[in-house]
C-alpha cells in the first residue's frame, strides 16, 4: 500500500502496522464489512416481506393457504439457522438449476442425477460456468440473502401474526360496523396499528439477524468473522511478510466494538421509529 512497505521486516512499529493493516488481505476484511451491511440492508426488507406474506397466508380463510402459511412458520422457525444453512443453500441452488434445466433444455436426455452427481445441461447452470468470478459472487450473495430472508421471514411472520391479533377488538369492531370489508379493515386498521405491537418483536429479530451474520461463511460469503479469524490466526514467517502470534483476541475485540456500535445505532433508530408509532397509544411508554 505505502511506498515504504517494500521490506516489512525492517520497518519500525508504527510503519509496520501501517503496512500490515493495509495489506490486500486486510482490504478484503474491510470490504467484508460493506458486504455484511449490504446483506443486512437487503435481507431485512426481504425477510419482512416474507414475514408479511407468511402472516397473511396463515390468517387466510382458504385452508390450504393457511396450512401453507402455518407450515412455513412452524417448520422454518423450528430449525436452527445453522442447520438450515448447512444443507439448504445447496438444495436451493440445485432447485433453481433444476427449474432452469426443465425450461432451457427440454430435450436433454441424460439423467440429472448420476450417482452422487447433480448434472444439469451447461446452459442451465447458475451462474454459467464460464461466467466471470464476480457473477458467481453476486449469485452466492443472492442465495445468502434469500436463505436468510426465508429463515428470518418465518420469525417475522410469527411476530406479525401475533401483532395482528393483539389489536384491541373494539378497534376492529368499529371498522366492521362501518362496513369496511375484511380487506379494508386489514389494510386500514390492522396493518397501521400492528406495528406498535410488532415493533418490539421485530427489533429483537433485527438484533438476532445482525448477530447471525457470522454464519454467512457457511453460505459461501466471506464475512467479517471469517476474516477476523483468518487474519488473527498465527501468521508464520514462512507464509507471510507480517508474521505475528495468535492475535485473534484483538480482532474479535475490534469486531465486538463494531457490533456494539452497530447495535447502538440500530437501537437509536428503532427508538425513533417506536416513538413515532406509539403516538396516540395510552401506555407507559407511549406519549
Amino acid at each position, binding site marked *: 500500500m505505502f511506498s515504504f512497505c517494500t521490506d516489512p521486516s525492517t520497518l519500525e512499529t508504527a510503519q509496520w502496522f501501517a503496512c500490515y493493516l493495509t495489506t490486500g488481505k486486510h482490504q478484503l476484511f474491510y470490504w467484508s464489512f460493506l458486504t455484511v451491511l449490504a446483506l443486512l440492508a437487503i435481507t431485512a426488507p426481504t425477510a419482512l416481506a416474507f414475514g408479511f406474506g407468511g402472516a397473511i397466508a396463515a390468517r387466510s380463510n382458504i385452508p390450504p393457504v393457511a396450512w401453507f402459511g402455518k407450515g412455513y412458520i412452524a417448520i422454518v422457525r423450528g430449525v436452527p439457522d445453522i442447520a438450515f444453512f448447512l444443507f439448504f443453500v445447496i438444495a436451493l441452488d440445485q432447485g433453481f438449476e433444476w427449474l432452469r434445466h426443465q425450461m432451457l433444455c427440454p430435450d436433454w436426455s441424460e439423467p440429472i442425477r448420476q450417482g452422487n*452427481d447433480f448434472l*444439469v445441461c451447461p446452459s442451465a447452470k447458475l451462474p454459467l460456468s464460464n461466467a466471470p468470478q464476480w457473477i458467481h459472487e453476486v449469485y452466492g450473495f443472492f442465495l445468502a440473502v434469500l436463505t436468510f430472508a426465508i429463515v428470518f421471514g418465518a420469525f417475522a411472520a410469527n411476530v406479525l401474526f401475533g401483532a395482528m391479533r393483539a389489536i384491541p377488538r373494539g378497534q376492529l369492531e368499529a371498522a366492521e360496523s362501518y362496513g369496511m370489508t375484511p380487506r379494508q379493515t386489514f389494510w386500514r386498521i390492522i396493518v397501521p396499528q400492528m406495528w406498535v405491537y410488532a415493533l418490539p418483536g421485530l427489533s429483537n429479530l433485527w438484533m438476532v439477524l445482525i448477530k447471525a451474520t457470522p454464519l454467512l461463511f457457511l453460505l*459461501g460469503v466471506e464475512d467479517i468473522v471469517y476474516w477476523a479469524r*483468518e487474519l488473527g490466526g498465527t501468521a508464520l514467517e*514462512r*507464509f507471510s511478510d507480517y508474521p505475528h502470534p495468535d492475535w485473534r483476541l484483538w480482532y474479535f475485540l475490534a469486531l465486538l466494538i463494531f457490533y456494539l456500535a452497530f447495535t447502538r445505532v440500530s437501537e437509536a433508530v428503532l427508538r425513533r421509529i417506536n416513538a413515532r408509532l406509539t403516538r396516540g397509544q395510552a401506555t407507559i411508554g407511549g406519549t
Partner: protein
Amino acid sequence: SHAEVVRMGTEGAYAPWNFLDDNGEVAGFERELGDELCARAELTCEWVTNEWDSIIPNLVSGNYDTIIAGMSITDERDEVIDFTQAYTPPDPSAYLATSMDADITGGVVAAQTGTIQAGYLAEQGVTVLEFATPEDTIAAVRNGEADAVLADQSFLAPFAAENADLVMLEELVSLGGGVGMGVRESDGELKAKMDAAIQSMKDDGTLNELITKWEVSSTW
C-alpha cells in the same frame, strides 16, 4: 486462450498446502501445482475457496469442478467422488507439544473436529479434545488444555520451527493415503486430463521440486 474454464475448489486455510497470502490470494503448494497442471492440460483455471465441511457436496452439486485442498484419498471419499492419481505420497501425522515428554497415551490430545486424526485418537482410547479450527488445537497445547496436538506433519512443522515453546514429538502415525485432486465421478474427461498432467509433472521432476519447496511431504 483456452476454451474451457475449470473452477478449482480449495479451502485456503491449510498452510503450506493452500492458504491466503497477504494479498488475500490463494497461495501455497497446491496453488502453484494447480496453475501448472492447468497450463499443461490447456485449461483456464479459476480459484474458489469453500468451507471444508461442504467442500465435497458443493463439488458434486457442480459449483466447482475440482477439489484441490490437501485432501487424502480415502475409500469413503472415493465412493462419492473420483480422485486423480496422488500428487504427493502420504503425509504422516505428527504430534506437537510443549515438551518432548508429553503424555500422548494417558493425557489429553487435541485434534480438529471430524479429522482422521480425531478418529484415530478415539480409536486408540486417548482422551481426544476436538476443536473447530486447527488454530484452536495449537492454542490448546500452548495454554495447557491439551498435552499435545495430532495433525498432519506438514501443517505442524512450520509452527515448531518458528516457535521456541513448541516441539514435534518423534512419534509419527501413518493415516490416510496420498493426496489427490477430487473430481466428479461423471467428469472422466477432466480426470483423464489432470491425470496426464500430474504424470507429466512427476516424470519431469517438477512435482518433486514443488514438494521440496513447500515441504508438504516426502518426494516421489
